[in-house]
């Protein structure tokens, strides 16, 4: 071993995770369209839904009482969706740059790669969501942070789900190349109707409710409504969501490793294209 190199190749290395985060940070800072994209859509979302909430509150007694449940749902949905996109887009950047081979041939381990993508999803999320919440506060008087401690439980559960979906979607792209890129952009929308973002679970047919309760975000959105409408924090829902999230994350990581192995078997890492 060259004396130039530290013996850091066993275990998980914070040094290598840090290197990857730095790589994405350099990229973000070098590209104003990438930065703008992070803020632009969440801002549009909150303004549109904020005015809708204002209008409905004026015409419906229920929504007037439900103080900001629509805006809250929009922000939480964006945490879920943007969290996954923040993860997956950083992964796609490697595919677009044809840099994956360099990374796979370096001492960077898959788990370190995924951890760096998770950190980047948090950074990208912060850049998009913080302005969104400030807009909600100043335009519509909805203080997202007033949710307090339950917000941490909501956030943790949503971000874990977003990472699980991100890991799974990235594995599919790794295996199938950029031809599968559209999955990254659309996969989370499959969750949307079942996660009951804007309506309670009991609106769904009974058989579909079983499916809905298999998804961690459903617990979060039910929990949010319980908090905003009934002023009750349902810790039981958050714990249930956490358990499902743990299973979901372990499964998606295992699938990612299987897809990586399959990509190596089929030579997809060399082509990376369609």
């Amino acid at each position: 071993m060259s004396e130039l190199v530290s013996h850091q190749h066993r275990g998980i290395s914070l040094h290598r995770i840090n290197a990857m985060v730095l790589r994405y940070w350099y990229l973000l800072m070098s590209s104003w369209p990438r930065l703008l994209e992070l803020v632009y859509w969440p801002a549009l979302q909150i303004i549109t839904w904020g005015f809708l909430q204002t209008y409905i509150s004026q015409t419906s007694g229920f929504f007037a009482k439900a103080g900001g449940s629509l805006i809250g749902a929009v922000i939480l949905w964006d945490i879920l969706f943007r969290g996954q996109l923040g993860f997956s887009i950083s992964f796609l950047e490697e595919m677009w740059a044809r840099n994956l081979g360099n990374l796979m041939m370096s001492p960077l381990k898959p788990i370190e790669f995924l951890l760096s993508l998770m950190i980047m999803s948090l950074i990208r999320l912060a850049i998009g969501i913080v302005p969104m919440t400030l807009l909600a506060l100043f335009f519509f008087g909805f203080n997202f942070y007033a949710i307090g401690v339950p917000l941490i439980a909501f956030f943790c559960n949503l971000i874990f789900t977003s990472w699980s979906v991100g890991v799974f979607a990235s594995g599919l792209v790794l295996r199938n190349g950029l031809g599968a890129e559209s999955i990254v952009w659309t996969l989370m929308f499959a969750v949307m109707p079942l996660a009951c973002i804007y309506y309670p679970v009991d609106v769904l047919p009974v058989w579909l409710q079983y499916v809905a309760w298999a998804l961690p975000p459903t617990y979060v959105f039910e929990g949010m409504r319980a908090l905003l409408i009934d002023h009750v924090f349902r810790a039981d829902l958050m714990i249930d969501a956490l358990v499902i999230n743990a299973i979901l994350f372990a499964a998606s990581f295992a699938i990612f490793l299987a897809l990586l192995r399959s990509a190596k078997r089929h030579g997809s890492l060399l082509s990376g294209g369609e």
Partner: protein
Amino acid sequence: MNGQMQQSETGQGHPPAAEVPASAADLSGSAAIDVAHLVKVYKTTRAVDDISFRIARGSITGLLGGNGAGKTTTIAMIMGLVLPTSGRVQVLGAKIPEQSYDVLGRMNFESPYVDMPMRLTVRQNLTIFGRLYAVKHLRERIDQLATDLDLKDFLDRANGKLSAGQKTRVALAKALINQPELLLLDEPTASLDPDTADWVRQHLETYRKSHNATILLASHNMLEVERLCDRVIIMKRGKIEDDDSPDRIMARYNRDTLEEVFLDVARGRLREGAT
């Protein structure tokens, strides 16, 4: 040098590398690369078909062959980017892919199939790869590479704004960032003008000598292989067609250049050409 690792003096093709008489270096198990009965099948195509060879530490070996000969797949299996259908690969004493993380920090590669991130500057790219490889005194190392590979003028320019020749030098700097014991190069001078290509070859030779590094390179450039390599493995349709020093191969085929040998092999004139 290469004669230590393979003897192919029959003049009738060559014996499989697994049967090659082993030198003292082989017996000590110190081959940089040890490939045995390697097979890669993609659906119905046998991209690599039962090849075996060992490469001595400190040598430069050229992997020659036409398009689809199996060179890139072979190198990719040595790197662990492609899993073999069967057979065994050992690199610097570690089984690939099972123990690849034990040795990935001691090797590096350059290939036209990968790029460095385009929006990042050369310095940023080298910083990131230096950190991934846990290079100590990274700033000094980057400065040294910038001097050695003449990168100073564009060290703070985005990689995407460089010429093909500049990009190749940057890719080479990335490949050398960790002072690898084993360097795998796929077409290292493709798309370079003759002057830059010659300069890169000189640098590789110097690096090998000064660090006793092992280099395996796949190339279509016969002059490059003739000049750089002390051993040549010629592949055709996934199999090894010949394996010896450039001089001995040319003598065996009764040809003056490797290019003529390559054409003989590619056009199936192996037997007529062989003495």
